[in-house]
């Protein structure tokens, strides 16, 4: 034993010396090199002009709309805009009208592609840094000091894309006629309640509505701004049979509800149009990606649906945004998304210059080829870096019980820490992220208010094979078999840990191949199982997995999308399906955790909804500290451009930011205000 360990150490040392020329340079200088690289710019974005005194007095419109006005088919632009439009100062210069934005999508499952383009249909949104909340559809949102009432001020005179008025009635319509209708929404959403008590949405006057709760719910303000069920906006939250998002075009959808005629009539109509019943019909009718008659609020509305080879959007003549000299936005006339049957084809077409701005589905592994072809394809590459700490996180199932021996180790903190210390993150970074990511734990970026402190990046998250071996020896796994793998304590056979992965955004199976090889050095046999996605989900739901690999995007705004940090959402609880059920059902289903740290996490999380922002940040930091210390989820590398961070922009486009926020809540590309992009020629 002793001999093999020193040989191990010697070879590691030798390897490190040999690698010196390779790593010492690039890794130490990595962040500064990256900073010097032209590919990563500074975060920037168009500013909103909120001072009413600076509102433009005269307004102008796109030529294609001016023609319609002349022909009498559209009211003049002044009447189409709200009395107080959203004024956006374009990033670089005032733009020109015209042009078609070419983009690629992969099918009906890729509806997010278009949802994000229309992200300005949210009530409130985030600024370019992703840290500050700014107005969007709503003129402003006020939170009462006790956190129980949220008043939303709408824009007077704002209209839907078909010209009908957008008022508080659209909110009450949503709340009373859609959300409260059990046929359409069978179960209320957690977003709308605090401490188990459901809230209400009431109309105050034509341009004011209020969300009212019985208990303090300070978090709700963030939820309205975030990509949540309630705050997400009409396009994302009312497509694909969802019915959330706080408002809906009542004047159009009323005709499909039994309440306004009769169940018989709407069913008859449904059958006539080819639907089974009125419920199916209304789910279709309120889906902006399928039904082009549906009024929407975003910069472009749909003219050719998503279930065809060409998903086409055209400018919304009633869009509520203008630039600083009064030009009604958007500048770009049209968006055409062309269908590619798979992501390789999208990448190939992007490299060939067939898209004008594409960040979605672009594979960071192809970066060298993409860079090579910049001139030929007439595009520029921008790298946007994420805020979440782990593009690849190994979630260890704490509620696993099928094999007691394995369960014993999965729930042992030192076992998990040793696994984490056995991962060579620099190697992963170099191979799969081309050195562009930040290795370390799963906590969000240091710039985020949720980050618990710089020392938590490296805690338990460096390569220390010696320590890992010592820890594993100490907890009772010292015995090894003939090939150096540790054996089980119950039957002396080799201990095998199954790591389940799918082939999704990142080449996880390949990454796990590398990790499994690295774990050889600490005597752990990992069986990497790449399975088909649905099967993986089913196994997780049945509490069958040991470790599941995913990424922790969304956890940078901890409370809005916590499922990849802590097991609180039963639909996707890699860290402990039974515990998530227990938490979500308030103890009625699932199983209560024995681990006091998990219980503490649940308590902290539960208390957060009623805390003010500053206090909430501290609570989140406490939770992150426990997570890193306990290594329930082993973070590897993160804060990278791997997911929607490699942005190819045609050189014909203007007002393009050199770097944007790509965190989940920033809704890239929506967060960079595509309505102020324009074609320079």
């Amino acid at each position, binding site marked *: 034993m002793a001999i093999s360990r020193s040989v191990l150490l010697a070879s590691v040392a030798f390897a490190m010396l040999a690698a010196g*020329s*390779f790593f010492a*340079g*690039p890794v130490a200088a990595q962040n500064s090199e990256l900073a010097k690289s032209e590919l990563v710019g500074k975060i920037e974005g168009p500013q909103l002009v909120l001072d009413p005194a600076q509102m433009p007095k005269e307004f102008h419109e796109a030529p294609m709309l001016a023609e319609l006005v002349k022909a009498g088919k559209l009211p003049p632009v002044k009447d189409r805009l709200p009395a107080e439009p959203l004024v956006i100062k374009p990033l670089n210069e005032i733009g020109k009208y015209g042009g078609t934005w070419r983009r690629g999508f992969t099918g009906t499952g890729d509806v997010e592609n278009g949802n994000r383009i229309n992200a300005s249909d949210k009530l409130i949104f985030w600024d370019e840094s992703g840290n500050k909340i700014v107005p969007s559809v709503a003129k402003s949102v006020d939170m009462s000091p006790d956190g129980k009432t949220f008043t939303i001020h709408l824009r007077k005179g704002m209209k839907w894309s078909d010209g009908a008025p957008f008022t508080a009635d659209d909110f009450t319509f949503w709340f009373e006629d859609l959300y409260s209708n059990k046929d359409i929404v069978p179960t209320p959403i957690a977003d709308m309640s605090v401490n188990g008590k459901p809230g209400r949405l009431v109309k105050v006057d034509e341009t004011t509505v209020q969300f009212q709760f019985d208990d303090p719910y300070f978090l709700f303000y963030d939820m309205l701004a975030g990509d949540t069920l309630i705050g997400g906006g009409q396009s994302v939250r009312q497509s694909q049979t969802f019915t959330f998002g706080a408002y809906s075009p009542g004047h159009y959808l009323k005709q499909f509800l039994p309440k306004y005629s009769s169940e018989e009539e709407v069913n008859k109509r449904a059958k006539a149009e080819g639907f089974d019943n009125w419920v199916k019909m209304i789910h279709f009718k309120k889906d902006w990606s399928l039904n082009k008659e549906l009024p929407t609020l975003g910069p472009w509305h749909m003219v050719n649906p998503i279930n065809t080879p060409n998903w086409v959007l055209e400018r919304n003549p009633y869009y509520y945004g203008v630039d600083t000299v009064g030009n009604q936005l958007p500048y770009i006339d049209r968006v055409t998304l062309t269908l590619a049957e798979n992501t390789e084809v999208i990448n190939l077409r992007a490299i060939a210059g067939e898209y004008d701005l594409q960040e979605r589905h672009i*594979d960071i592994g*192809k970066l060298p080829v993409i860079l090579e072809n910049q001139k030929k394809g007439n595009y520029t590459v921008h790298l946007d870096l994420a805020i979440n700490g782990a593009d690849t996180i190994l979630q260890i199932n704490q509620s696993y019980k099928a094999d007691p021996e394995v369960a014993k180790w999965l729930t042992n903190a030192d076992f998990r820490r040793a696994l984490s210390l056995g991962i060579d993150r620099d190697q992963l970074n170099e191979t799969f992220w081309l050195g562009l990511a930040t290795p370390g734990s799963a906590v969000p970026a240091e710039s985020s208010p949720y980050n618990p402190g710089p020392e938590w990046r490296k805690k338990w998250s460096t390569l220390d094979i010696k320590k890992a071996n010592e820890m594993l020896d100490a907890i009772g796994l010292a015995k090894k078999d003939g090939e150096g793998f540790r054996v089980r304590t119950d039957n002396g056979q080799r201990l095998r840990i199954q790591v389940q992965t799918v*082939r999704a955004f990142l080449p996880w199976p390949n990454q796990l191949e590398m990790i499994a090889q690295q774990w050889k050095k600490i005597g752990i046999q990992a069986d990497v*199982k790449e399975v088909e996605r649905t099967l993986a989900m089913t196994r997780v739901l049945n509490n069958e997995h040991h470790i599941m690999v995913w990424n922790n995007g969304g956890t940078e705004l901890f409370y809005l999308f916590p499922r990849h940090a802590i097991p609180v959402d039963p639909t996707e609880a890699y860290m402990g399906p039974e515990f998530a059920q227990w938490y979500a059902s308030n103890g009625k289903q699932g199983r209560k955790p024995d681990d006091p740290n998990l219980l503490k996490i649940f308590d902290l999380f539960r208390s957060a909804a009623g805390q003010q922002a500053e206090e909430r940040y501290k609570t989140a930091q406490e939770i992150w500290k426990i997570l890193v210390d306990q290594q329930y989820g082993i973070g590897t590398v993160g804060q990278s451009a791997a997911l929607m961070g490699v942005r190819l922009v045609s050189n014909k486009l203007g007002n393009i930011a050199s770097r944007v926020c790509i965190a989940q809540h920033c809704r890239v590309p929506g967060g960079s205000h595509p309505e102020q992009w324009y074609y320079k020629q």
Partner: protein
Amino acid sequence: MRATSAISGIFARLAPWRGVAAAPSAEERIAFATQFQLTWWRFRKHRLAVWSGVIVALFYLVAIFADFIAYTDPHATDARRSYIPPQAIHIFDADGSVSPWVHGLKGKRDLKTFKIVYSVDPESKLYLRFFAEGYRYDLFGLIPTTTHLIGVADGNAEDGLYLLGTDLLGRDLWSRIAVATRISLFIGLAGVMVSLFLGVLLGGISGLYGGTIDTLIQRLIEVIRSIPTIPLWMGLAAALPNDWTTTQIYFAITVIISFIGWTDLARVVRGRFLALRGEDFVTAAELAGASRMRIIFRHMLPSFLSHIIAATSLALPAMIISETSLSFLGLGLRPPAISWGILLQDAQNIQTLGIAPWLLVSAVPVIVIILAFNFLGDGLRDAADPYG
């Protein structure tokens, strides 16, 4: 026919005047040779087929000695060796002697193009040797050893030997191709055997008996043909025990799927049987009182043995292609198993074509073996042709 020719051969030798005459003439040899000998002689004439047979045999040899032929652990990953192009081998040493050697390499990532640029380390020189020391493995799965066909003297092959380059994870391609041969060549065999057996059996019954049995089997074939294999595959993959390795799962699934893969051969066999049923020699055999079984196996089967051989020799490469296709769809073998399909999957993307085209070499053994199987099958078919 065999018995009679053997008997006549014996009589020929026993006949008294034989002992006096010279060695039997060529025609006589042919007249008295067994069917097997005839087949072998005809096969030998077809040069291409013989060489193909040799190649197939060589491939299987490689498959058996896979780890011996590899020189680096095909699973071992290292970011520092990522995407190394195939290197040049210097045959002559500085003093003019024949002593092949290679340079060591150092790599650095160019932060403008993000490619790793490898430069030769002029100081480091690794000499190649046959039967050198390398990573540990079990020969034939039994004998632990560290000897490999090729390696470097004094040092690790990982640090300098990259005959065909490396992949994204820094794994040597030569070693991976060698080890992939094992799974790719063996995994389809059982399935092909099952399909072959079922195809001949059911096709034969169908063609020979005709009538209701034929109808039933034909309809069964249509139903089976229409079964979508993909959800079957997915369902089986889910149903098999979780702790089986991907290789075991794949093997089990190929055997199961081969229970529905016999339909093509069955239809061809049936067609031939239908045609042969009316042949004179079949009628003669029936009249002579031969049993059904005897007629099928002794008289009819040899007539289209060639088709069966042709079909089998196409089935094996078809298995290989289906393995690669399924891996492409993400349904077949998965890493960490190593097969040609998996190697090709790594090669099927733009970055390979653009930055690391040497990875496409993995397609070469696939192409070669399929060609070899086809020529071999061709030659066998020609040789077994009863009228040749």
